[in-house]
């Protein structure tokens, strides 16, 4: 087993990986930007090295700096987390070349699955169903028109090297095609340095259901069942759960087998995720493969009972999987809410700043993975994900109720969060019935929904008045203690000042 691992990441996932290292008796080396000196991952690590200024291109994306730290600290392996360099084949290759074990698949696999077009081609060859569309990048507008007619509108234009919704356009009407193609190409070019774009049919009411894979270096592959990730905002997952309410045991088994088939076709090893789109007729299609640990991995850990990050490390160290497919079962139900510093009442605009108060929920079936603490100043430079709250229950209803009370208990002062949004989802009838697809938020959510409750209206007014009263008292105290406002003043003068302030 490794003695020391470098974690090329920050925030909650860096903390997550450090914890796994410590539980395996492995020393953890952190890297950090100048904005992160006080961050948890720096403080929990055994060693920590600054790799540059706050903006990630100058720090967390600097492969040279990170490898320098790996050498200096004598780390034997590198864990990339998710985001940043996690799916960058060049970084994986540089690690390999420098003699560090990259905790993930080979750089070749990352490269192959990173190209959406090549990934599709691989899957088609392996008889894994893919969303109907082009196998090759589009040549020009004429080509695009032709293909679009063939598979039928609405269609998606997608960047061949894409991810995270960039270089993506939905086209509902042939008239929009030219403009959309231009937009997608230019966005793809600027985001990925490659303007290749391809076409996929836009499914109706699609659900996003993914399968977790573990593959060791000795040819053994298992799946750890599905995660339902259809609650998305702008192609970003917000809430995930497992099991999916949409799958029955037969479909689950079939998708699991095909997920393993897909992983085999990619020559996969370590932890990975096969993402599927499922239409309302229960047809499922390969969407893409994520060649890293996912944000939402904890729900699988809770329901299947396997520590996925430890498994990643064990596999990278050459160990065989300690279980077979038939040993794995799902127990109960788990839901994850991503707690983000963003304002659900104002278009989810991000909200950085100082955390002035923090009180997190706990108790049976509750897990939190966090990168924050009271007194932490959330930097503006990185992802707004603060923490992941996971509730497990004996069944889905139990899990939802537990999550609801956790969200009610959660107190984070000083920064706006999407907790009120999560609470709204947990009380939404469609969600409660499991009847949702990737359009759920667009279809059902609005700011008005959030503030529709009138249950405690008077209490809210009283609370506001209490806050205003305390603010006025504070203002008064400041005025009275200001130069010339000392206690030597006559009571009459004081009273005059109080009146001027409207404090009587």
């Amino acid at each position, binding site marked *: 087993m490794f003695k020391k691992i470098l974690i090329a990441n920050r925030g909650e996932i860096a903390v997550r990986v450090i914890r796994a290292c410590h539980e395996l008796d492995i020393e953890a080396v952190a890297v950090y930007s100048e904005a992160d000196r006080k961050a948890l991952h720096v403080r929990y690590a055994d060693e920590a090295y600054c790799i540059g200024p706050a903006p990630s291109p100058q720090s967390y994306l600097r492969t040279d700096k990170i490898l320098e730290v790996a050498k200096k600290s004598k780390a034997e392996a590198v864990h990339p987390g998710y985001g940043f360099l996690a799916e960058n084949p060049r970084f994986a290759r540089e690690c390999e070349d420098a003699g560090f074990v990259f905790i993930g698949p080979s750089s070749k696999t990352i490269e192959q699955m990173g190209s959406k077009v090549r990934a599709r081609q691989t899957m088609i060859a392996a008889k894994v169903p893919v969303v109907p569309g082009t196998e090759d990048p589009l040549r020009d507008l004429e080509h695009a028109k032709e293909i679009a007619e063939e598979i039928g509108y609405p269609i998606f234009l997608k960047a061949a090297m894409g991810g995270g919704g960039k270089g993506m356009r939905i086209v509902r009407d042939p008239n929009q095609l030219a403009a959309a193609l231009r937009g997608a190409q230019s966005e793809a070019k600027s985001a990925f340095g490659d303007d290749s774009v391809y076409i996929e049919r836009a499914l109706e009411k699609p659900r996003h259901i993914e399968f977790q894979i573990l593959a060791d270096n000795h040819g053994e592959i298992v799946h750890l069942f599905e995660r339902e990730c259809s609650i998305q905002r702008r192609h970003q997952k917000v809430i995930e759960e497992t099991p999916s309410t949409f799958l029955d045991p037969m479909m689950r088994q079939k998708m699991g087998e095909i997920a393993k088939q897909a992983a085999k076709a990619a020559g996969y090893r370590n932890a990975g995720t096969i993402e599927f789109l499922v239409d309302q007729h229960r047809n499922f299609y390969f969407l893409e493969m994520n060649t890293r640990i996912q944000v939402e991995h904890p729900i699988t850990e809770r329901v299947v009972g396997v520590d996925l990050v430890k498994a990643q490390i064990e596999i990278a160290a050459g160990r065989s999987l300690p279980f077979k497919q038939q040993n794995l079962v799902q127990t109960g139900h788990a839901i994850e809410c991503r707690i983000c*510093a*963003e304002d659900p*009442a*104002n*278009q*989810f*605009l*991000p*909200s*950085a700043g100082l955390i*002035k*108060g923090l009180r997190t929920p706990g108790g049976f079936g509750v897990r939190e993975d966090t990168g924050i603490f009271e007194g932490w100043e959330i930097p*503006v*430079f*990185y*992802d*707004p994900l603060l923490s992941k709250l996971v509730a497990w229950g004996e069944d889905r209803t139990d899990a939802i109720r537990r999550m609801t009370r956790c*969200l*009610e208990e*959660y*107190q984070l*002062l*000083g920064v*706006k969060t999407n*907790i*009120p949004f999560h*609470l709204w989802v947990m009380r939404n009838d469609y969600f409660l019935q499991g009847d949702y697809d990737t359009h759920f938020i667009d279809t059902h959510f609005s700011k008005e929904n*959030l*503030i529709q*409750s009138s*249950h*405690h*209206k*008077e*209490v*809210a*007014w*009283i*609370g*506001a*008045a*209490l*806050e*205003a*009263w*305390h*603010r*006025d008292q504070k203002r008064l105290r400041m005025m009275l203690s200001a130069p010339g406002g000392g206690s030597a003043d006559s009571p009459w003068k004081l009273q005059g000042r109080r009146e001027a302030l*409207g*404090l009587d």
Partner: protein
Amino acid sequence: MAYEIESDGKKIEIEIEPAETEGIFNVRIGDQKFHVDGIPTGEGSYSILIDGQSYEIDIDVREDRYRVVVNGEFYELDLRDERRRRPTVTAVLETPSGAQLVSAPMAGKVLDILVVAGQSVEKDQGVMVIEAMKMENELRSPIQGVVKEVYVKRGEAVEPKAKLLLVEGS
């Protein structure tokens, strides 16, 4: 103290006075009187007991705009004190022809400007994209009208509250 609260277009007068015991307040809303046990539990957070009912309250204030979360439920309201009530009303009357400023809600980079000066916009039409915290955030026009002026350029870094764009109501 007396305050005026505006909530869902309604105006409510609310009076709050500390009672003799610390942490206890007498509150009046119209005819209703409340005996409130309200103690601060953090910056902008209170534990409130009214007739034995227990509420956890978090409050976020930006100027007169109060965001109140009661047991996880979300409220928005405007609150002014008595002295400032009249001037504020006057100020609204003086605002010229309803021109509205779009300003930056956070530090970030102008990724895209979706309109040009002179262009007509609908209410809630996207006018600018700001990248902040690794997210692209579309800013929308607060009113229907015409873009009078754009103060920033694509690619420019902006500070919180920076002027971005002026829309004149039509």
